[in-house]
Each structure stands twice: as C-alpha cells, then as structure tokens.
C-alpha cells in the first residue's frame, strides 16, 4: 500500500445521504476477478444521468468526494473502495461512514475523513462557488483546509498510523505467528473443523 501523508486536489459535492455500496458499485460489476479496472463501475447507474455531478465538466479530475451522511452502507464489497480509487479518488469526506466500508478503505489506502455535516455543507458551498479550488487534506495534522476554511477531521489512530507508514496489516500480524500458534494449541476440541 502507498503511504498517505497529505493530499491536495479538487472536490466533487455529492448531495446524497445513505450512499450504499450498491450505488457506489452495482452488483453486476462484481463478477470481475481483478482488483483494478473498476472506474467505469463507480456510481454506474447515477452516471447514466448527464447532470450527475461526476459527469459535469467542472468536476472532471476530482480526487476528493464530499458526501452527505452515511456513506458506504450495505454490502461489504471492497470493490466499492477499488472503484472510488480507480476513478481517481484519494479522500472521501463525510459526517458518518458505515463501519465495514470504512475498514475496507483503511486497508486499501483510501482516506475516509469524518467532519461534521455543517462543515460538509460549507465545503459544498465553497466547491460549488469555485469547482477548481484546491482542497488540502493533511493526515499528519488531521486537517482539511481550503482558502479561509479549515477544520479538523477524525480518523482512527491505528488506521492513521498505517496509512502514514503505508503498512500492510498481514505483515504486521505475521510478526505474531508464535502467539497465534500458541493460541491454537489451547482451542477446545469440540470446535468444528473440516480437516
């Protein structure tokens, strides 16, 4: 995973709440067996509407998504994270993320930063007044800033550390292989096994 420290880019406002993972990537795209190449699948059904925010010329090349509350609800499909990243997003800002989506984002290197809904609304105004305005998301300082606007964001300490270092979870866990083996010795014999 690539490390994430600070990112500056333009943003798209998404005026929706409860953006579920079936909207982020519909099931028909989940048949693919690769980890990349999902850019066409992102918000596939909303993108059929020429007025959808990501279709508008002023929001081409965005890398930050500013969404209404409850982003990423529903299915555990990590394809939702891959589709956002393949499309070019590095950051999603929202007042509330669904748990599994948030966990998946942390694994894949997509930053999900929590800021209050009032700050989301301010950002919507700023971005809509000038879609080309660059927004900076600083993971080291946990701050979002653009022009005069600045606010702190929340991110899990452990996820932040892993993102900053670009660490792979499996590698970290495998350092504990001995304790895992030790634990396995004491598992009760009544537990099911397919062996």
């Amino acid at each position, binding site marked *: 995973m690539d490390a994430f420290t600070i990112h500056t880019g333009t943003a798209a406002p998404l005026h929706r709440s409860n953006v579920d993972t079936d909207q982020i990537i519909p099931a028909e795209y989940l048949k693919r067996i690769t980890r990349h190449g999902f850019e066409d699948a992102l918000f596939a059904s909303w993108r059929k509407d020429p007025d959808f925010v990501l279709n508008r010329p002023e929001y081409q090349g965005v890398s930050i998504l500013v969404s209404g509350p409850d982003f990423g609800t529903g299915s555990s*499909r990590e394809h939702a994270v891959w589709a956002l990243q393949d499309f070019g997003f590095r950051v999603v800002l929202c007042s509330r993320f669904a748990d599994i989506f948030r966990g998946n984002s942390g694994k894949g290197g997509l930053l999900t930063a929590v800021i209050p809904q009032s700050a989301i609304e301010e950002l919507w105004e700023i971005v809509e007044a000038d879609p080309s305005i660059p927004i900076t998301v600083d993971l080291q300082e946990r701050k979002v800033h653009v022009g005069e606007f600045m606010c702190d964001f929340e991110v899990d300490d*452990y996820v932040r550390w892993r993102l900053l270092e670009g660490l792979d979870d499996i590698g970290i866990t495998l350092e504990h292989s001995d304790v895992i083996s030790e634990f396995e010795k004491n598992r009760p014999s009544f537990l*099911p096994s397919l062996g």
Partner: protein
Amino acid sequence: MGRTLAEKVWSDHIIHEGEGLPDLLYIDLHLIHEVTSPQAFDGLRAAGRPLRRPDLTVATEDHNIPTVDVDKPIADPVSRIQVETLRENCKEFGVTLFPLGDVEQGIVHVVGPQMGLTQPGMTIVCGDSHTSTHGAFGALAFGIGTSEVEHVMATQSLPLKPFKTMAINVEGALPEGVAAKDIILAVIAQIGTSGGQGYVLEYRGSAIRALSMEGRMTICNMSIEAGARAGMIAPDSTTFDYIKGKPHAPCGKDWESAVSYWETLNTDPDAQFDREIAIEASTLRPFVTWGTNPGQGLPLDQVVPDPKAVSDPVERAAIENALAYMDLRPGQPLKEIAIDTVFLGSCTNGRIEDLRAAALVIKNRKVADGVRLLVVPGSTRVRIEAESEGLDQIFLEAGAEWRGAGCSMCLAMNPDKLAPGERSASTSNRNFEGRQGPGGRTHLVSPEVAAATAVRGTLSAPTDLAEA
C-alpha cells in the same frame, strides 16, 4: 462487573493485545464465496503465503450462480469464470467447496448453520455483510472486506477494535401473523440505518426467546441494515436442540463439554450495555418498506409518508429521492401499491420455516394475474426438504416458479432480475436503488406478507385474504 455475551466471546478469542493497538482475534470459521475471494487468493499467491487453516475454511457457490439449468455450464461467461476461479483456488489451497450441483451447496449463511458449523461462542467471518446471521447461535459473526478475507486466509486472525454493545429488548408475545422479519424491520425503522454503527446488537427478551432458530437468524441477519456489524442472541435449549445431530456438531464427551461452555454464554445480570432499546412485541404489526433503504419502513396498514412533514433537510431530501425513485406519492395507502414480482428467498428468509410459512398462506390459492412469484430455497438441502414435504407442489399449483438454491434476485447478479421500473415484494434484506436489477423497485416484507401479496397483487397481509 459482569460482562455481556459479546464481551465474553470477544475476550475468549484475544490472541494478542497492546496499548493503543487493536486486539488480535482468533477466527474459528471462515466462510468463502465466489465474489469476494478471488482477489484475496491472488494476494496470497503474489506474496507466496499459504492459507493457514484450510480446515477452518469452507466455500460455497451462491451469489452469482443461476437457479435454473444448474446441471449445465453457466451461460454468462463472466460469471462462469468467477465460479471456475473459486474452484481452482479452493483446489490449490485445499479448501472444502460445495459447488453448484452438490447437495450441500447453498447460500453461505444457510449452509454454515445447517451443517452444524455455526456454533455458540465461535468467531465467524465471511466476505459478506450478512455474516451477522450466525450471531443467532451466540457466535460473534461479522462481514469483512476482501483485504480482511486475505488477512484471515493468511493468519486465521483479524486485528479489531472492540465494539460497543447495545441491547434490543423485545418483550411480550407477537400478535398472530407477525413474523421475525417484522420485528427486525421495526427495529431498523426505530434506530435507523446508522443506529447500530459501531455496536454489536444483542437481541433479548421473551419475544426473542420464543423464536425458532430460523426466526432468530432472520433477525440477526439484518443487524447490518441497522448499521451494526454483528447481532447476537444468547444460546439456549432451542439453539442446542437445533445443533444436536448436525454433521459437524460435537458428539459424545465433546457435546457435553460444548454444552457446559455454551451455557455460560449469556450476558451477566449486572453487565452494562452502552445503549438499550425496548420494543413491545404485542404492538408490532406486519411491516413493509416504502423507500430505498431498510430504515424507510412502516406497518403495512399505514400510508406513504409526506416529506413536507419532516423538518430535517437531509431527511426530507432522502424521502423525496426515495419517493421519486419508488414512484410513490405521499398519503398513498401502502396496501394499494401493486407489485409485479414476489421474491421468496435469500439468507434472510430462504430457510425451510420461511417456505412453510409462505406455503401455508398460498395453499389452495392462486398467484394474481400478471404477478410472478419466484421461490428460491436458501440451500439445496432446504429445497430437498421442502420437496419432501410437498411444498414445491403447493407453490407450483399456485402458479409460482420453483428454483434451485442461491442468492438469486436478492442481489440480481445472476439472470434473476427485475426489469427497469418493475416493482417487487421481496423477503430479502435490501431495498436499495437497483438492488434487484437496474431501475427495479423493492419492498421488503416477511414470507407471510410476500405470499399474501402474490395472491392479491398488491401489498397485503395474510389477514387481507378471503377464505381459501
């Protein structure tokens, strides 16, 4: 201080803990299916890592497989490649697989319990958010993403931050015709789709104790629709009776030690939950969703809500969007909504008891003209059992389609889909835009309501039907 059920199971699985670090939890059972595993297997291969415990890993084919012509090669080439990839991966890494055509094949959350692989006090994960289903046995079970699937494959463990705990107390007796599905739809409508976020829900109270294992699974299944990763119910004699004699249930001495451990798996009387919710079972009625998330539901005898009556702008916009998508108008009685398709199935309501409940309603009646009723058993075993009871004949005589087992129209990855603009009453768990096919509209209901709706052609409760 006492501990909750979730805290007990959690602490019995901690391999490693450290200041400021997530706990490393041991995983007792890893369930796998074709959709969320291929990239994880690729990751293992790329890193040259083995799959640590093939004996604690089991795979089935469910999400994308067809429910007709199951003995023929899968027609859709992309689906076929995905299923074949699962088969090759399971072979390479030594994982037991129940492929299409196998008697044990079925939806992953139906297969685990019916084989006795799901037991109290276990940690169970799967790359599927409805893994919460297994919590009905007092297991700590939750959905994970593909990176975590790879993590579990490589290490049989997961680093996790402890959840908060929420008690959902459902006391009293359910009125006639009110099902487990109605309880959980009412819970979600009450706490909202993010109300359970960060929590493990523990369903408690006399109404929960009175439910069968199938009913308990329906409830725990939809915990994720309330935003909770896991839902649990303390195991009791209903649980033990269900497990006893299943292929992977403990036997002899092991059975006794298992039961004496399982009996300790309940929340201590002095334990504290972070939040508690109370629901009076006797006030519940058959429930239905009108919108595009599972929290947008009401009792069936109500009318479509009016966004103008809601002051919160985000909430109002959500209702407006939902009504536009669902093509409904405020004030319209829910029972006047006409549907095209009824889907009876899924990991929420595709078990034998669900099929029995629907068959009881539809027996000696006919599916309304122009309505399609699709009956998709949750597993091949459920299908066989239903056929041995003659349920298939009841459905076929009513004019329904009787299919092979799988996820089918729950997520419409296979050819079972709604056409754009079509409307369904569905016993599944998600009414998101396009969930059952692009442009399709979904109303979530219980099996009993699904059957009555198929007969009348409009959203209906069994009590709305004339004598058969």
